[in-house]
């Protein structure tokens, strides 16, 4: 082949060193607040319009009999130009002396929220536009709230159409005050609030003469001051497994480092399988002469690693260092925005996609629907399209994830309904325990010893089978009262029976545990194991614990050997609060006790309990009679 048919570039370090910084800015605002005009002005005044573009827009405007329409700069679709509305997000490029910009235009119309989200999610910073004449609108607040949810932290606000407001400082001050107050209430600090006239060009690129009272930067200067997002190399390692390749003799684990650093020799743990191995190599393909395999890498890079041991890991697991592993849980709290054509429904299952993980989750509860304009709460059995809500999601298997606040990329997810992404959300583990310790077996080389006495032999001698009666319910529902009364009644009937009571075990077995979510989980785990030992010994154990989390109760069920009976001692919060035998509700109401079940911490009612005892509807004797006949039917031999 001749030399002329392919040209190889000469390696020129200069050209690469000359890379300009790139910043992605999303522009959002209520329909007709002047988004497109501002973008047009920005391009025009920075000399960024391609040749002939101005004339083309002029021709497109004249053809439709409208005055010069800057919106045509970005509205590329015929339908958008004809209807004068931005349907989908678009991008356009311009540069200042400082750097290159991608401007992402996000539709303001509520109907196109999914497209606004699509645009906003790609940005490093946002420019939010408010019409000085119309003031802060519902959509202005909604957009601010959603930017915050999407994790966009740098926000500049342009108060537009100041020319129509007579360049009046008071008009601007009022809007600035109102909008700043709103943003502050959702924990966002706008970096700048700038009075502008996109039509006249005030404070876009050149400082406004008509508004000499404004001392802050122009829009361009404000944008130039933003910092482009860099991957978080300083946080602990998160490397979600994307795929496993076996193209040749190497077994390569592929994935992108979402945070932290990795080096050859590091010991990694893969969650939630909890297998570990050391990094043997970081694989790399390059034709650049002298390029070597790296010995370390960091956040932002897509890598392929090999391990020193052949362990089975799959897509969706998260690799981390052992001491800083992600949370393992099968239930979590999330703030979501819903985009689905059908509402999100309580109890319904959706496919969760979190990083590279896919899992089925069920909506366990819809805690509140959040009104983004005044942040008030409402309760509803479903979340409608375009609403924001706080929900509790539950999975059938253990998931590895993080709180969004600690690790944005492993703390957010989307939900898929049928074939479509129907919503997105960010995770908070508030009130929920990391279950990693509860499911991690630390001992090795352990073999079970075999008893020579059978369960049947024990049951024959006792006249009843061993088992666990697991009473769960709110504080004040009557668990302890019922448990003690039942113990007495059964004892009198000849049962080997014993009550494990919450307060009692905390004096001994669990004296080293606090009331943190993790310790509460551990408290229940130990009680579940002890109850299981009682069962095997042929005894009937009655437990009286709030045990608010389904996962904890499920583990107790698994610890037992078949004789576990979940009994829901049911009474609503109002009834329990009116009883308040230990004065705890009163303390919870004043805030003296934090994370109090039913008041400030969740109670997950059993889905399919073996028995429901309604202490609000029946008196103690009736409840007791029901329990005794249940035990006689299930345990007597």
């Amino acid at each position, binding site marked *: *082949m001749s030399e*002329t*048919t*392919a*040209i*190889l*570039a*000469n*390696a*020129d370090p200069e*050209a*690469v060193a*000359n*890379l300009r*910084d*790139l910043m992605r800015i999303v522009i959002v605002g209520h329909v007709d607040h002047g988004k497109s005009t501002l973008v047009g002005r920005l391009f025009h005044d920075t000399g960024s319009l*391609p*040749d002939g573009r101005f004339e083309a827009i002029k021709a497109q405007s004249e053809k439709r009999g409208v005055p010069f329409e800057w919106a045509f700069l*970005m509205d*590329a*679709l*015929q*339908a958008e130009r004809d209807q004068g509305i931005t*349907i*989908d997000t*678009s*991008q*356009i*490029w311009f540069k200042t002396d400082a750097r290159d910009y991608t401007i992402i235009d996000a539709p303001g119309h509520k109907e196109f929220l*999914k*497209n606004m989200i*699509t645009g*906003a*999610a790609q940005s490093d910073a946002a420019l939010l536009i408010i019409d000085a004449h119309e003031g802060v609108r519902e959509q202005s607040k909604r957009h601010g709230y959603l930017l915050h949810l*999407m994790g966009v932290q740098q926000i500049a606000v342009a108060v537009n159409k100041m020319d129509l407001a007579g360049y009046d400082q008071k008009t601007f001050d009022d809007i600035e005050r109102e909008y700043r107050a709103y943003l502050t209430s959702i924990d966002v600090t706008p970096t700048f609030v700038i009075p502008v006239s996109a039509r006249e060009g005030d404070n876009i690129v050149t400082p406004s003469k008509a508004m000499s009272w404004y001392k802050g930067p122009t829009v361009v200067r404000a944008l130039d001051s933003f910092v482009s997002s*860099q991957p978080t190399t300083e946080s602990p390692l998160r490397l979600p497994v*994307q*795929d496993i*390749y076996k*193209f040749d003799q*190497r077994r390569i684990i592929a994935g*992108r480092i979402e945070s932290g650093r990795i080096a050859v020799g590091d010991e990694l743990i893969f969650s939630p399988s909890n297998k570990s191995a050391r990094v043997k190599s970081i*694989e*790399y*393909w*390059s034709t650049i002469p002298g390029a070597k395999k790296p010995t370390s890498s*960091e956040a*932002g*890079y*897509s890598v*392929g690693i090999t391990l020193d041991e052949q362990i089975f890991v799959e897509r969706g697991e998260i690799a981390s260092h052992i001491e800083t592993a992600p949370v393992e849980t099968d239930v979590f709290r999330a703030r979501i925005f819903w*985009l689905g054509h059908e509402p999100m429904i309580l109890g319904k299952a959706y496919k969760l996609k979190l990083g590279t993980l896919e899992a089925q989750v069920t909506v366990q509860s819809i805690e509140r629907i959040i009104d983004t304009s005044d942040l008030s709460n409402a309760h509803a059995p479903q979340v409608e399209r375009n609403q924001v809500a706080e929900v509790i999601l539950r999975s059938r298997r253990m998931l590895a994830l993080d709180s969004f606040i600690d690790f944005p*990329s492993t703390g*957010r997810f*989307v939900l898929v309904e*049928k*074939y*479509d*992404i129907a919503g*997105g959300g960010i995770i908070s583990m508030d009130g929920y325990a990391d279950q990693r310790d509860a499911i991690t077996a630390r001992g090795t080389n352990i073999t079970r010893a075999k008893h020579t006495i059978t369960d049947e032999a024990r049951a024959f001698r006792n006249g009843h089978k061993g088992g666990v009666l697991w009473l769960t319910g709110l504080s004040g529902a009557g668990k302890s009262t019922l448990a003690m009364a039942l113990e007495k009644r059964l004892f009198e009937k000849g049962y080997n029976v014993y009550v494990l009571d919450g307060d009692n075990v905390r004096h001994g077995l669990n004296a080293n545990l606090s009331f943190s979510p993790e310790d509460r989980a551990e408290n229940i785990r130990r009680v579940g194991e002890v109850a299981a030992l009682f069962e095997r010994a042929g005894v009937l154990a009655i437990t009286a614990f709030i045990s608010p989390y389904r996962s904890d109760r499920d583990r107790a069920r698994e610890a037992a050997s078949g004789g576990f009976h979940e009994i829901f001692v049911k009474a609503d919060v109002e009834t329990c609060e009116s009883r308040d035998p230990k004065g705890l509700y009163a303390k919870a109401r004043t805030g003296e006790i934090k994370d109090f079940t039913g008041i400030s911490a969740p109670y997950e009612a059993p889905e399919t309990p073996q028995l429901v005892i309604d202490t609000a509807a029946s008196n103690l004797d009736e409840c007791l009679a029901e329990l005794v006949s249940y035990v006689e039917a299930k345990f007597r031999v």
Partner: protein
Amino acid sequence: MDRLDQLESQSIYIFREAFNRIENIAMLWSLGKDSNVMVWLARKAFLGHVPFPVMHVDTEKKFPEMYEFRDRYASEWGLNFIRELCPPIEQTDDTLPPAARSAARKTEGLKLAIKKYGFNALFAGIRRDEEATRAKERVFSPRGLAGQWDFKDQPPEFWDQYKTDFPPGTHIRVHPLLHWTEIDIWLYTQREQIPTIPLYFSKNGLRYRSLGDQDITNPMKSMASTIPEIIEELRTTKISERSGRAMDHESEDAFERLRADGYL
């Protein structure tokens, strides 16, 4: 991490997602500068292998230099290469303007190839900054059975969560270079020393900025004869990249119509 590292890592992520989530996928190779970067990125993503077919949908009207380039690198890069021919112009929509109609042959060729091999998805090297309707594209872009693009109701796409669940019969275009710009392509070509067709470099004061069929592609005035000179030129030019591609400019919506019908 510099700008090229970021772009590269994102493209690798997209390649790996698509390869994992979609069965029976292939890559379109148009032999142009973007396409070659795309092949390169696939080799990076899969550590030297390209684990799917690489297809050239041939109008048989490309420049001789392009064919020579194709034949050499298909073998040198160890590609699983497929060449498919486009049907004659009579089989295209006769209401399209002439150049657009000529370009539409490629759409028809593409549809036939997809049917022939049963590909569920294709990697295509389009970029947002090339053209305004491409600026509205998704990374994972679902198409109807006949290849048509429903640009008025595109799926949401955020946090690198792409649409990967489809009813049977959906065809997907995956765009690993969507977030790159023309300058990025040249900077990366330079850094990685990726082979390039010489038509991009100035000869007698003219160079091609974008390559297509010979009869509907025009060169532009330029003195840039090396990659650094091209990069310098692009930093100051106000002429759009596809100004030499006739089918983009025949009518206000010619290109939109082409794309809605399945053009790249």
